[in-house]
């Protein structure tokens, strides 16, 4: 139910020890792209010692391990599987890779959908055990397709949509790809709203200064909360499965959605 997922480099103490300051609902400690091959061991040991010493209730912590076909995968999991973390973010996800990971741990998994093949198989991926959310990795996905990334993001319209739809159908969260220009707040706002409007439930980011905007975009608005309150209240007062409110038909899925909105609002102090 997180609104924001912030990647932070796994071998940088100044970022690690401030991970709860950035107000991201979830933190993804990265062992993959932001850690050089020479320092993979260093990052594992740093994070192990850090998480043994400090624990966090207000933020969900995930680790992005290296992909299942890399030489670092096994050791990444081995060193971290007993730590107090929510789960793993798995890059270059495939059904097989998730099965591999599930053999090693029972923790939650967020696969990154970052290839055309993974997108084709997204429903199978969503059905795998321990998968709790789907994360779109648009940079690698468009690179593989050989197309350009743009602010308008028309090129990932289908990918965003299918991920949002699949996640929704299987009751998972869907996490949008990061907006890579960390200086451009207006661009981020547009990009996040585009994702929201396609049904994605949250967005990842690569810089702490992006978190505020993402949280605002993916939080239920005041009017949404108000309406949800009225729906839930009326549903409790009536024993009918469906009823009408302001001329609109309210049935079970709508009530469930309203409850979710309220849950989210409560969690994020709105």
């Amino acid at each position, binding site marked *: 139910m997180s609104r924001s997922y912030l990647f932070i480099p796994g071998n*940088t103490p*100044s970022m690690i020890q401030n991970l709860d300051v950035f107000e991201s609902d979830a933190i993804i400690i990265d062992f993959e792209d932001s850690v050089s091959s020479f320092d993979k061991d*260093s990052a594992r040991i*740093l994070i192990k*010692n*850090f998480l043994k*010493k400090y624990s966090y209730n207000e933020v969900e912590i995930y680790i992005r391990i290296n992909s299942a076909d890399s030489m670092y995968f096994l050791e990444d999991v081995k060193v971290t599987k007993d730590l107090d973390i929510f789960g793993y973010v798995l890059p270059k996800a495939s059904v097989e890779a998730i099965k591999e990971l599930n053999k090693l741990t029972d923790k939650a998994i967020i696969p990154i959908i970052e290839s055309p093949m993974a997108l084709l198989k997204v429903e199978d991926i969503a059905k795998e055990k321990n998968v709790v959310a789907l994360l779109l990795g648009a940079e690698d996905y468009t690179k593989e397709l050989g197309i350009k990334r743009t602010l308008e993001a028309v090129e990932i319209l289908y990918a965003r949509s299918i991920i949002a739809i699949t996640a929704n159908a299987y009751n998972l969260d869907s996490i949008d790809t990061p907006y890579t220009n960390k200086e451009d707040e207006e661009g981020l706002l547009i990009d996040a709203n585009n994702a929201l409007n396609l049904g994605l439930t949250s967005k990842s980011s690569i810089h702490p200064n992006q978190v505020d905007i993402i949280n605002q975009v993916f939080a239920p608005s005041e009017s949404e909360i108000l309406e949800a309150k009225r729906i839930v209240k009326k549903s409790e007062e009536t024993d009918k499965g469906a009823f009408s409110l302001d001329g609109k038909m309210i049935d079970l899925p709508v009530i469930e959605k309203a409850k979710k909105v309220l849950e989210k609002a409560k969690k994020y102090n709105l």
Partner: protein
Amino acid sequence: MKTSAGSLESSDCLITVSDSSELKIVIESVVLEQFGDQIREVIIQTLSDHNINKIHVQCLDKGALDYTIKSRLETALKRRGENLE
């Protein structure tokens, strides 16, 4: 044999370990006056946790917290083939 781990970025430290016939610890730190003793203690404790007592440890510290000092030392030790399990 000489191995090292860490960096000279703020809140990190660069630790280098090398062969020695005795325990030798050299610390340079931006907070040496305030935390020099504490840094030494973390190094000694970490070495003793792994039953190592003859080694030369050099720590160039940029304000690292205890967990970082411990981690960088363990990584450097591991890189010289010490079995830390």
